[in-house]
């Protein structure tokens, strides 16, 4: 509750500053409040994940994972936690765990190639069956929009697949970009499924319990 008030007060301060120099009507205020909230949420989540990555030495890997997850998530949707705190912590932990796998669990080119194929088919199935996976705060109600987002998710997956094929044909060694993005795509595909939603709910419960104890 305190954290929500802090974010809300930040938004109010930013908007009052903008209002001093430019006339903002009520409709514009709603749009700007929402835009500011999105930016603040994104900055908190990216910063926490990248700060942790910087500390444990997997910055590059985590940056690539976040990039891959973010692009696909924008079109395919997926599970979210119930508040900004849990979402930021959950995202930071998962992306850094995946980053550690990329850095310390070295694999051969043939193994990575097999892993890419498995990931591609899992993502294809998950997008085909569940995308766009919406959240209660942002339901996707129209069939046209659902179709459009699903199609764009397939396009993102295809572009990633082309990038992997190019890597396989042209580059002789294992690329961090390919390895990290594969894990990112796999994780993002998992968050689309029913089990992904169940897992996020479980993490939510655990984090809420932990923070209640701390408070």
């Amino acid at each position, binding site marked *: 509750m305190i954290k929500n008030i802090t974010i809300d007060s930040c938004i109010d301060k930013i908007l009052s500053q903008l209002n001093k120099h430019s006339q903002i009507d009520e409709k514009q205020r709603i749009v700007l409040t929402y835009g500011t909230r*999105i930016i603040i949420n*994104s900055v908190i989540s990216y910063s926490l994940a990248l700060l942790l990555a910087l500390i444990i030495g997997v910055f590059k890997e985590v940056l690539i994972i976040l990039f891959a997850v973010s692009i696909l998530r924008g079109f395919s949707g997926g599970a979210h936690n119930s508040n900004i705190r849990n979402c930021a912590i959950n995202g930071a932990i998962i992306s850094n765990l995946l980053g550690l796998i990329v850095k310390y669990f070295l694999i051969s080119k043939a193994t990575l190639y097999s892993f890419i194929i498995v990931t591609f088919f899992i993502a294809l199935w998950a997008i085909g069956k569940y995308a766009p996976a919406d959240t209660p705060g942002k339901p996707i109600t129209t069939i046209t929009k659902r179709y459009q987002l699903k199609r764009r998710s397939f396009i993102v997956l295809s572009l990633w697949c082309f990038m992997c094929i190019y890597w396989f044909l042209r580059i002789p060694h294992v690329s961090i970009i390919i390895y990290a993005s594969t894990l990112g795509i796999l994780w993002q595909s998992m968050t689309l499924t029913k089990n992904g939603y169940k897992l996020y709910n479980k993490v939510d419960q655990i984090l809420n319990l932990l923070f209640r104890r701390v408070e």
Partner: protein
Amino acid sequence: MKKRLVQLIITLLTFAAFTNIASASSWVGYQPEVPKELQN
């Protein structure tokens, strides 16, 4: 100069809001509830 900067910030915030509305969910982090005025 300051007014131009304010206009730029307003443009960026509006862009962020509408990009999020057009997408399935936020690209990273928490997805806040979309205001009723922006749902359709």
